[in-house]
């Protein structure tokens, strides 16, 4: 199995987003497992033993697996139904579908017989979280092996029961067929009455992508209808008997201190519970309208801190408070920058500014918490169910086994739902109220009390020969983060560093992490350099690139866009950009039109994307489309406005996100590399759009923009 941490583009977790111990296991008692799910056959996975069973093909329990400690991945019931257990969660990437395809492919069962059990800490093996485009390369690979292991054992069992040779048997559609005798047995019949637990075998024969019949094809969203009829229960839709609706008292600004609070009037309202623990004040009522009234009835006095950076001052603040890079942020150097600059015919210095932006998941944070006999169950929309389980255990000082976190398919995340604020708040109120409590954040709360993609300052200094050879590349990133920091171009002398700063706003992961900022700065600068030596943007990149996968997407995007085929008319401009992240390779061409009033319109976008062997072409295209459109918002107009610890645009009228009318004509072209392992697709596809548009505006007007967003008002200043 390919370890994603050893890939050339490792996932870089944001501080605090990974559990302290990496190898914590979620385990479930073996007897309990079969009691819960019925007999049959289960493929188990025990983290520290993953590869130690490689040579054991038997169906008995290997001695190294403690009988009581088994975390199942795939269970085939006596009725032939297949349950797949994974800690990965569905936030719209359509992995419920793509992972089903992978299991169906390897196990040789119909997709309809598969149920994915996802993100339930009582039922699924430990998983650090759904981020970093790891589901497809990591979970997909594991499930593929688990399914292949199960299939081989079932065929083996059928061979034994028929006393026939394995050669003449074939698994197909949930049955084993005996091609010699024409006999046929269902998987459930074969495993009936058994309680078999198998370790994943690394030797199990998996199907090569070129031979895929179910994976690699478009399969519609497996639970699609439930969303189109309104039947799917997001956490914010759930209801338990006796459930109360919770609300939390919020500070008027960041870092405000609660001086005094009077909750008498709130408590006087019938059916209202008030919870006051330290600076936390929450209410619960039998209906949300009463909860809202109770919250309004609370009289709180806060001491606010007015000396906090604002949108106007934040970039200076980030540079001023930056720390020398060390550890993971240690400078990455090659050659000597000064020599490189001395050897250059042209040099260029630019500073790029990246605003804080918000994820704006359409479903705000929500949680439903219930305490029963000291055991806490929380349904919540989080990309890290096990992380939230840890948080809850810590906050309430209970054993982790006493905390169950369940994540139903959730209304999106984009890296913005790694935390469990609503879960903690709901559990806190529920514990005092003695009843289940549901808490759904308002849009304003989501904008204010979640976290943001970091803002940052990126300084780039470059040296260039007249023939287009890059001689020096100094790249200093303040606060944006390390993802996508290093350059893919051939440069003799470079010095690349990320300086962490003291962020005045709470910041965290985002789709593509910091690569949205780093690739913007790098690719903007590349086009500026091409112009210095009067080279075409595409030719200049190709000249300085060796990476064949990156070149392939660049050339494909350019070809489909018709790069270089058109003579520019007034106001028209063309730009391109490329990059890679987490195994995904992207190139984007953009056409803009800037009218006489300097209004900018993105007319057309062509994007090529490659992420190895494609698992589901339609859903891959959806992911790429979503990345382009979300990236368009951050490119053109999205920015958080803040002052004195207050968010000034915490709503969808103040914070503009892309709408139907913002859509350019978008063409997506994918490369299916069946010879390469499948990588994730939810992140890298966002990288190209902002610099491509920026470079197109430069091409149209000669104006080299250096800020993200590029045109917050819609026109050039």
């Amino acid at each position, binding site marked *: 199995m390919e370890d994603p941490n050893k890939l050339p583009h490792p996932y870089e977790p944001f501080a605090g987003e990974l559990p302290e111990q990496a190898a914590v296991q979620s385990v479930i008692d073996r007897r309990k497992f079969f009691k819960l799910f019925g007999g049959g056959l289960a493929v188990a996975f025990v983290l520290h033993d993953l590869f130690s069973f490689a040579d054991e093909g038997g169906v008995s329990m290997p001695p190294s697996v403690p009988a009581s400690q088994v975390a199942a991945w795939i269970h085939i019931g006596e009725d032939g139904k297949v349950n797949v257990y994974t800690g990965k969660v569905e936030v719209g990437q359509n992995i419920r579908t793509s992972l089903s395809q992978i299991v169906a492919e390897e196990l040789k069962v119909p997709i309809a017989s598969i149920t994915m059990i996802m993100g339930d800490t009582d039922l699924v093996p430990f998983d650090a979280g759904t981020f970093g485009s790891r589901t497809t390369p990591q979970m997909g690979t594991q499930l593929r092996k688990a399914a292949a292991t199960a299939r081989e054992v079932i065929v083996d069992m059928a061979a034994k029961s028929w006393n026939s040779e394995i050669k003449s048997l074939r698994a197909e559609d949930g049955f084993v067929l005996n091609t010699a005798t024409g006999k046929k047995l269902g998987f459930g019949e074969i495993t009936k009455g058994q309680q078999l637990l198998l370790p994943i075998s690394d030797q199990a024969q998996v199907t090569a992508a070129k031979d895929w019949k179910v994976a690699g094809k478009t399969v519609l*969203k497996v639970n699609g209808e439930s969303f189109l009829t309104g039947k799917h229960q997001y956490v914010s839709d759930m209801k338990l008997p006796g459930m109360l609706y919770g609300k939390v008292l919020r500070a008027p600004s960041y870092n405000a201190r609660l001086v005094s609070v009077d909750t008498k009037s709130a408590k006087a309202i019938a059916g209202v519970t008030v919870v006051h623990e330290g600076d936390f004040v929450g209410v619960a009522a039998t*209906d949300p309208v009463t909860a809202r009234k109770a919250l309004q009835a609370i009289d709180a006095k806060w001491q606010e801190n007015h000396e906090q950076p604002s949108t106007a001052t934040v970039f200076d603040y980030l540079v001023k408070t930056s720390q020398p890079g060390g550890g993971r942020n240690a400078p990455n150097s090659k050659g000597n920058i000064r020599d490189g600059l001395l050897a250059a015919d042209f040099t260029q210095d630019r500073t790029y500014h990246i605003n804080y932006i918000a994820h704006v998941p359409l479903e705000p944070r929500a949680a439903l918490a219930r305490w029963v006999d000291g055991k806490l169950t929380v349904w919540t929309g989080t990309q890290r169910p096990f992380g939230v389980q840890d948080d809850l255990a810590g906050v309430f000082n209970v054993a982790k086994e006493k905390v169950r976190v369940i994540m139903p398919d959730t209304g999106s995340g984009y890296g913005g739902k790694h935390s469990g604020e609503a879960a903690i708040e709901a559990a806190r109120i529920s514990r005092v109220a003695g009843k289940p409590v549901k808490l759904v954040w308002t849009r304003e709360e989501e904008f204010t009390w979640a976290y943001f993609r970091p803002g940052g300052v990126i300084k780039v200094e470059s040296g260039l020969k007249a023939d287009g050879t890059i001689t020096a590349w100094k790249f200093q990133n303040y606060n944006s983060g390390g993802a996508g920091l290093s350059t893919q171009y051939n440069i003799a002398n470079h010095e690349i560093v990320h300086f962490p700063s003291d962020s005045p706003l709470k910041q965290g992961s985002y789709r593509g992490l910091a690569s949205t900022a780093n690739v913007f700065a790098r690719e903007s600068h590349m086009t500026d350099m091409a112009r210095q030596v009067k080279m075409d943007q595409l030719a200049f990149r190709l000249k300085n690139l060796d990476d064949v996968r990156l070149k392939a997407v660049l050339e494909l995007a350019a070809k489909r866009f018709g790069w270089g085929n058109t003579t520019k008319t007034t106001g028209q401009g063309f730009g391109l950009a490329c990059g890679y992240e987490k195994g995904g390779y992207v190139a984007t061409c953009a056409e803009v039109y800037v009218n006489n009033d300097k209004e900018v319109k993105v007319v057309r976008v062509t994007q090529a994307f490659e992420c190895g062997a494609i698992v589901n072409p339609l859903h891959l295209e959806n992911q790429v489309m*979503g990345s382009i459109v979300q990236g368009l918002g951050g490119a053109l107009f999205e920015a958080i406005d803040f002052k004195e610890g207050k968010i000034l645009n915490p709503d969808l009228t103040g914070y503009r996100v892309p709408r139907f009318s913002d859509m350019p004509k*978008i063409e997506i072209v994918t490369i299916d590399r069946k010879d390469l392992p499948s990588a994730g697709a939810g992140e890298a596809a966002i990288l190209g759009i902002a610099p491509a548009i920026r470079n197109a505006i430069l091409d149209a007007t000669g104006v080299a923009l250096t800020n993200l967003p590029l045109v917050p008002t819609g026109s050039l200043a």
Partner: protein
Amino acid sequence: MVLHINGVKQEVTTDADVELLSVLRNELELTGTKYGCGEGACGACTVLVNGRPTRSCITPVSAVSGKEIITIEGLAKNGKLHPVQQSFLAADPFQCSYCASGMIMSAVALLNSNPAPTETAIVNAMNGNICRCGTYPNIVNAIKLASKP
């Protein structure tokens, strides 16, 4: 107060100034209609009131008393999906699908008044609905699939 919802008369006890969305979701357990912004800016809460797409999060329940309200739960008839739902099922445009109910209600309203809308008409009619996953071009395709040329 009595509301006419999905062809059924429902007695509700909430104050007259409470928003329709809250009544639908919390009192009547029609949770297919979603909260997205609370200011009528995202369209996730769209329902039909006398056939018109209406933002239920900013509509006081008193304003719709006696009017014909259709929510996403009221589209399918006798277990058969509404033609617009069928088109969305076939086109599979969404990612997280949280916007789906509002998108489909807006699309039903559009197609009821204009069975063969141009792309511009689709964009104009749908522009109040946000899909943060950015699937707009796919949604346009789904609506075209549901339109009668």
